[in-house]
């Protein structure tokens, strides 16, 4: 006896066809294709009953079941009756189990491609909804902030201090590293051009103004969007998954006051400090290139920087960093509060928080730059 799947057809009488199965009917053993067998059955015209003999089937697994289910479906379509009596006991029972619960109508998902116009339409509706949601959130945070000013809102001081530490001192190493390198890069690029007409000394003003007016704040903002905003979204999102937000609400504590306010305030307080630090590190980067490579004197570089960077540039930088602090914190908290109830939703919330944070930083920078231009600052 070979282990090959084999099937023999014997016509018993006018209507009855006997299928004799033998061999190992297992998934990895080349089970014959159901459609081939179906054609074969059709070639005996006028068949009304199918019977099986499986005494020579040595081993079987799900392979024989899927094969028989296909045959069975085909039979019922073609008004052929399939007698399962000759099949192994286990196969009979599993077939009965598989057909015990009829497929629930409408349960199977239909994948219909949406026409492009309706995609645009639902996209627009979603956009409007999410804009309203964002405005709502801004409103709620503002109300909570007013309550805080009137001494009514509350959050735990311990939470606040922890957040302060996390988005303040814990962020210093990465902010210093990146801003030092940005200062270096800026100075290098400028050096190549400025050296061509012997104006190396202007590296000091270029790096100084560039870092202090814009880049210090923007770099610090983007780092915080990647670092803190994502962590806010993940923390709050996990609390949502864990029903902790529900527990706050039913205890009568507003999650906006309890979770969002301390985060926004902490970041708004820490961002200007981080920005000052970022400015310093950026200027230091330029200083290293200027003094170390281009032989500009230490005092010369210092004086040039101080002369060219006015107080206005510094204040604009600080103002921007405050704005970024609000935006980054709100982006993180908003995405966290919008989180759905699953593990992957927390990941999505963190991703979306970073994206929202960075986009809003870039847009805010553009607006502030244009405004300063118009106002002539």
């Amino acid at each position, binding site marked *: 006896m070979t282990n090959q799947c084999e099937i023999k057809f014997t016509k018993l009488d006018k209507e009855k066809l006997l299928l004799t199965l033998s061999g190992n009917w297992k998934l990895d053993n080349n089970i014959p294709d159901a459609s081939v067998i179906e054609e074969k059955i059709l070639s005996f015209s006028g068949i009304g009953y199918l019977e099986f003999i499986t005494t020579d089937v040595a081993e079987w697994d799900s392979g024989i079941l899927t094969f028989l289910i296909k045959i069975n479906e085909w039979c019922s379509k073609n008004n052929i009756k399939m007698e399962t009596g000759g099949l192994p006991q286990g196969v009979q029972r599993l077939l009965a189990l598989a057909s015990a619960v009829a497929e629930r109508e409408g349960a199977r998902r239909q994948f219909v491609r949406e026409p492009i116009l309706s995609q645009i339409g639902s996209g627009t509706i979603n956009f409007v909804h999410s804009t309203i949601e964002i405005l709502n959130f801004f409103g709620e945070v503002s109300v909570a902030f007013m309550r805080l000013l009137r001494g009514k809102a509350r959050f735990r001081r311990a939470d606040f201090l922890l957040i302060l530490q996390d988005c303040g001192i814990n962020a210093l190493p990465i902010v210093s590293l990146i801003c030092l390198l940005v200062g270096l890069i800026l100075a290098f690029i400028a050096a190549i051009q400025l050296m061509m007409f012997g104006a190396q000394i202007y590296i000091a003003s270029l790096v100084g103004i560039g870092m202090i007016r814009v880049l210090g704040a923007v770099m610090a903002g983007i780092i915080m969007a990647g670092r803190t905003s994502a962590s806010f979204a993940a923390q709050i999102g996990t609390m949502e998954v*864990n*029903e*902790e937000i529900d527990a706050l*609400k*039913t*205890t*009568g504590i507003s999650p906006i006051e309890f979770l969002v306010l301390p985060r926004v305030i902490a970041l708004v307080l820490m961002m200007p400090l981080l920005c000052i630090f970022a400015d310093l590190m950026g200027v230091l980067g330029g200083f290293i290139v200027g003094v170390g490579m281009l032989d500009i004197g230490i005092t010369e570089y210092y004086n040039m920087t101080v002369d060219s960077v006015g107080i206005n540039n510094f204040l604009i930088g600080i103002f921007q960093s405050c704005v970024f602090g609000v935006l980054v914190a709100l982006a993180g908290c908003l995405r966290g509060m919008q989180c759905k109830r699953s593990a992957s939703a927390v990941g999505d919330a963190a991703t979306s928080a970073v994206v929202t944070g960075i986009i809003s930083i870039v847009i805010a920078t553009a607006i502030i730059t244009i405004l300063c231009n118009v106002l002539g600052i």
Partner: protein
Amino acid sequence: MINSESHITVHDLTMAYGSFVVQRNLTFTINRGDIFIIMGGSGCGKSTLMRHMIGLQKPAAGEIIIDKLNFWNAEVRERETMMRNFGILYQSGALWSSMTLAENISLPLEEYTDLSSNDIKEIISLKLALVGLSGFEDYYPSEISGGMQKRAGLARAMALDPEILFFDEPSAGLDPISAKLLDDLILELRDSLGATVVIVTHELASIFAIGNNSVFLDPDTKTMIAVGDPNKLLAESDNPKVQNFLTRGKIHYEQTS
């Protein structure tokens, strides 16, 4: 029965997410001191019904009356006052993960009472002792087991001596002995505090052991198909779905009728 004064009345309640109706025409009364079971198969809207009763989700239609006050028509402030009488044990415990057990229990106390920090400390040890967690004050929720988290959640739910205790699947994820201990604790709390207890569960052992009133939600017809004492429902109900559920599928109904 302790007494039969009605405590919570749900009248013609329809619950929906957008245009998708979860359950409609729910009408039942929970008496003071009842242990009321919300039961039904998976996905029939048991937890959703509880979310409506604890103020997390607004009904699409109908009303919930608690202590003769209309819960959802009340102003936000008034509703919050009513919610102060609720103690809620969430399915996952929902302890605030950034706080120790003591801080978890003290938050509602600090929020709503003028107790001194010493008094609060004493209440915390008392509540933790009641659920068998003495000495765990300074543990964070992630440092204790799932069963302990649930008991700690119960301690927090009891912090303000609530009049109504809500439990969302209290025995889910617990071993049979812990589940039994939790059932005993619920009975004990009802008897000693005189609280009304509302439990969402499909744990048959608990349903028969502690429930004295219930509603059965059916996901197919999207409404309730039985109300009353679960033990009586088992003996008397002639609804095959209810019988099927209460007997774990041994159609008891064919033999009795």
